[in-house]
Each structure stands twice: as structure tokens, then as C-alpha cells.
């Protein structure tokens, strides 16, 4: 998912303190997907309640939000709307891969290969409508605002930052930079360790900040050229041209000015048509967004939270209570009034 631009974008290591009192817009699908993939038992089975309902996302969302608020960061979650028609192919492909992973997972389990089972199980995770609805309910109970995007969540999040309603986008994807968010925050996680995929090794991760305009300067390209670079490499809306990674893409775009010239020069037959390029470009440069949102934070509703998490999903009440303490900074935040 997302465009692989990491190697080109210089990031600055920051701490939660640098984000004090800041509003961060989080791409909900991006984090829910992470939670569903990683919050699993050793053999890859997702966390479930007694009725067999998955609870990984609720656990992740609750702990992540608690941790951000405890650090005086104000999270807003943005949910994807209707996927754009151009994304359908990508979605179909993802579904195919998911079905395959489900088969592989069962095979691995039968053979007793738990390591492989876990990896395969991670690839089966899917953000369903039910998961989205449960997540929204949890956020409402926690007093944390969320926004429904008309189309892509990343686009809505970037728009809110550009408009000056939030400080930055919190996501692992770089797509928000293509859409023009001036600030991207990565690794907004509570744990400072992350398991390397497929290995028994861990790396320390820290929150990182990436500034769009400084990056463009460093690369010596414009925003539009960055989008062209991404289309060459492949985005959620098109397959890239084989053999073109970030470095080569940058070089080609700088030399030829735009993607149309690059394609005319190298004459690739896997390249998207100019008409499709135009459409994809406008997805990034003029995406559908909405002003229909209100950002306010309030204290979690303790009774409802205990009912929702403990009665329905069997979270331990003790654990809920101790996590609730982390929401206390909201009280302090509420004391600060706004101008309008």
C-alpha cells in the first residue's frame, strides 16, 4: 500500500514532546490495517471475544489513542469513503492475494509451521464495514473526533492540514505528501520496538517528521513532478513500470520534466495511457474533500466504555481502568479555549 518514497525523503527523528498540543490527523484505515495485521496470537489468530468476533482493532485503537492523549497529542481519525473507480483494480488484486494468504495460512497451521502461519495470517487482515463501525463507536465513547472522507482518507487528512486545521498527517504511507500535506508524522506508535517482517528481530522506532516543501527543494522537483514520479513507480491507482524505483524515477522526471515525456522517451508498453495519467494526477492534486467536520475532544464516557469493551468484547475491567487514567490530559486540554 502507498508509494515507496521513503528512501528519498529525509526524515527527522522527533519525540512526542515535539507534538505537544498539536492536532494530528490519522488515516484510520492505515492504522486499523496495522492493528489487524500485527495484534495477533503467535500462530496468527486474531484476538477474538467469546463469540469469535475480532477485537484486535479495538485493542489497538484504544491503546494507541490513550497513548497519544497521554502525551498531550490531539488525534483525529479520518475514514475512507467510497473508493475511486481507478482503485478498483488494486482492490481486486488485494482481495485475490488475501484469499491466497488465507489458504497458505491454513496449510501452514496444519503443518505446524507457526512462524509462517503468523506471516500469512497477517496478510489476511481486512478492514470490514463491521470493523469500521465498531471503531467509530469506540472513538465516540472515547471522546475523540473522526471525519468521514468523501473518497480517500489520506486526501481528506492532507486537506485538513493544508487548511490549517491540523498540524500534520499521521500515517506510515507517503501518499499524503503527494496530496500536499506540508507535514507527515510517521511511527506514531506507543511501543518503541517494531518487529521486522518475517524475522525474529526487532528494531527501535521513533516518531519521525517529514516536511514536504523542504523535501521537494532537496530533490529539486515540484509537487506535480513528485506525483509524476509516483505514477512511474506505481500508486494505489496504477501499476508502475517494472524496474523503476525511487531513484531512477527521480532521475527520469528531472531529466524529462514530466511523466509524459519520460514515457515517450523510454517507450514502455506497460505505461499507463496519457489519459489515465491525467486522471491519476488529478486524484492527487485535486482530490475530493469535505469541510463537513467538527474537531472537539471530550473525556471518555467511562460507563459506556466498560460496557462496550468489557461486556461485549471481554476486555479486562482493570486494564480499562488503568488505560482511562491516560485520558486525563483531555481535562487539561479542555481548559484551553479557542478563538472561534
Amino acid at each position, binding site marked *: 500500500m502507498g508509494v515507496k518514497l521513503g528512501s528519498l525523503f529525509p526524515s527527522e527523528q522527533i519525540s512526542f514532546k515535539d507534538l505537544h*498540543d498539536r492536532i494530528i490527523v490519522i488515516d484510520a484505515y492505515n492504522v486499523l490495517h496495522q492493528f489487524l495485521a500485527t495484534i495477533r496470537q503467535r500462530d496468527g489468530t486474531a484476538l477474538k471475544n467469546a463469540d469469535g468476533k475480532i477485537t484486535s482493532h479495538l485493542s489497538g485503537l484504544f491503546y494507541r489513542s490513550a497513548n497519544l492523549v497521554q502525551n498531550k497529542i490531539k488525534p483525529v481519525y479520518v475514514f475512507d469513503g467510497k473508493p475511486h473507480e481507478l482503485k478498483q483494480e488494486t482492490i481486486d488484486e488485494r482481495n485475490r492475494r488475501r484469499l491466497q494468504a488465507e489458504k497458505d495460512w491454513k496449510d501452514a497451521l496444519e503443518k505446524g509451521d507457526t512462524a509462517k502461519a503468523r506471516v500469512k495470517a497477517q496478510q489476511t487482515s481486512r478492514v470490514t464495514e463491521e470493523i469500521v463501525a465498531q471503531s467509530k463507536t469506540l472513538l465516540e465513547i472515547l471522546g475523540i473526533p473522526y471525519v468521514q472522507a468523501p473518497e480517500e482518507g489520506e486526501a481528506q487528512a492532507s486537506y485538513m492540514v493544508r487548511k*490549517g486545521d491540523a498540524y500534520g498527517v499521521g500515517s506510515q504511507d507517503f501518499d499524503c505528501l503527494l496530496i500536499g500535506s506540508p507535514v507527515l508524522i510517521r511511527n506514531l506508535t506507543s511501543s518503541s520496538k517494531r518487529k521486522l517482517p518475517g524475522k525474529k528481530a526487532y528494531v527501535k522506532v521513533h516518531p519521525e517528521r517529514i516536511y514536504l*516543501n523542504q523535501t521537494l527543494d532537496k530533490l529539486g522537483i515540484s509537487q506535480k513532478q513528485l506525483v509524476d514520479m509516483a505514477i512511474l513507480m506505481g500508486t494505489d491507482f496504477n501499476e508502475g513500470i517494472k524496474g523503476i524505483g525511487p531513484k531512477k524515477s527521480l532521475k527520469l522526471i528531472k531529466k524529462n520534466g514530466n511523466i509524459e515525456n519520460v514515457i515517450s522517451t523510454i517507450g514502455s508498453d506497460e505505461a499507463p495511457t496519457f489519459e489515465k495519467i491525467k486522471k491519476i494526477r488529478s486524484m492527487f492534486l485535486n482530490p475530493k474533500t469535505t469541510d463537513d467536520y467538527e474537531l472537539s475532544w471530550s473525556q471518555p464516557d467511562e460507563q459506556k466504555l466498560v460496557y462496550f469493551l468489557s461486556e461485549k468484547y471481554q476486555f479486562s475491567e482493570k486494564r480499562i481502568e488503568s488505560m482511562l487514567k491516560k485520558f486525563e490530559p483531555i481535562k487539561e486540554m479542555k481548559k484551553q*479555549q*479557542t*478563538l472561534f
Partner: protein
Amino acid sequence: MFNAKAKAEILKDLIDVTSPLVNEVKFNVSEKGINLRAVDPAHVAMVDLTIEKDAFDEFKADEMELGVDMDKFAGIMRLASSGDSISLTYDDKANRLVIQIGNLVRKMALIDTAGMPDPKMPTLELPGKVVVKASELIQGVRASEAISDHLAISMNKDNFELFAEGDTDTVNLSLSKDMLEGLTSNGDCKSLFSIDYLSNMIKPVKSSEPLTIHLGNDNPTRVEFAIANKKGHVTYLLAPRIESE
């Protein structure tokens, strides 16, 4: 067309006022000078800043908007030492600001101003008004920042006071009418404010300059002061904190 020359300090004042609040800002340039207005994402503080053309050594401009990334601009201005004469020219073909510092020419890409906000200044009826030497307020805020994250500003017809309370320590700055450059207050006014915002606000203030504070009860404050050798003017609005419900 936009072509201006100014001492580095003038531009650094502009950066100090704006960059703590926003990443990107729109400079409204006209033949009279530069004006900008910025609100922080949390909508707690707003700054309206004008630098008259007389603050510049040279200034020629048509009406236009320049979209500036403040972190980037601040980074470039760190290359200048105080006293340096900085030249700014707008390159309309490439939409860049050409910044010349000594022999160094730095071309800075500007941001598309479409979609950038035009915040409206809220009207405030504030019964209290005090004119105080900036050095007093700076000292009070500095002292308070060590012990708390908020402080109270209050005034009545005879007195102006700043008070902060930590777990064990307190800070109190009290100035009677004869120690102030001006004081008018209809009754008692008191509001609490975040020290983070206040200390950012006072950064560009010259300690010898007077500072005008308008105050109400649990209401935003409006603080006005001069920058850029009195050829620039800042109006700073800051929303209050409310004591526990």
C-alpha cells in the same frame, strides 16, 4: 512585481512572530508593505502583522500573494547575521522568492496560495486596557514558565498583576497605576493564559517597547506591540484557559 531590501532583523521579527503558529503563511504584498494573518491549527492564537514599506531600505511592489513555508524561510534566514542587508525579489516565472544574503543567492520555491485560509479577526469587547513596558511582561512570563504551564493576568482601576502558581512555588508581578504607561479598566478583569503561547508571543518584542494588553474576564486577550523599528505592528489574539469547571 515585488522587490525589497531590508535588514535581517526586520525579516527575523516577522519569522519569530509567525513561525511558532503556522507552517505555511500567505504574505499579502501591496505598495504599502506586507501584511499577514495566521491562526494556529488549534485556533488558540491569531497573529496579524503589518510591516510598512518604510521598514525596508527599498520597497517596490504590486498587489500580490506569496505563499511561504515558514520553516524553510526561517532556515534560510539563519544563514544571515544581524546587520546583513537582505534583498527579496519575486520571480513570477518560476513562482520563487529570490533571497540574496551577501553574495549568496537562495531561490526559494513558493507554495500555491489557493486554498490557504484567510482568517477573520473576531471582534472582542474587552473592558481592561494597560500599557506596560515589555521588559516587565517578559520578566514575568520567564519567571512563570519555570513553575507552571499557565498564568493569570488581571487588572482593576489601580493595578495590573500577573500571577502563576506551581505545586510549591508562586510568581507574582504587581504594577500600580503610577508604574504603568497607561491603565483603564471598568472593574476587575482576570483571565488565564497558556505560558507556551505567551512565551512565543514575546519572543520578537523589544524589551524597551511599550506593549498594550486588552483584557476581559475569561476572555481572549488582545496584545499589540511594534516590531521592525516601530515600522511594523503586531496584533496578537490569545484565547484563555478556563479554570476547572
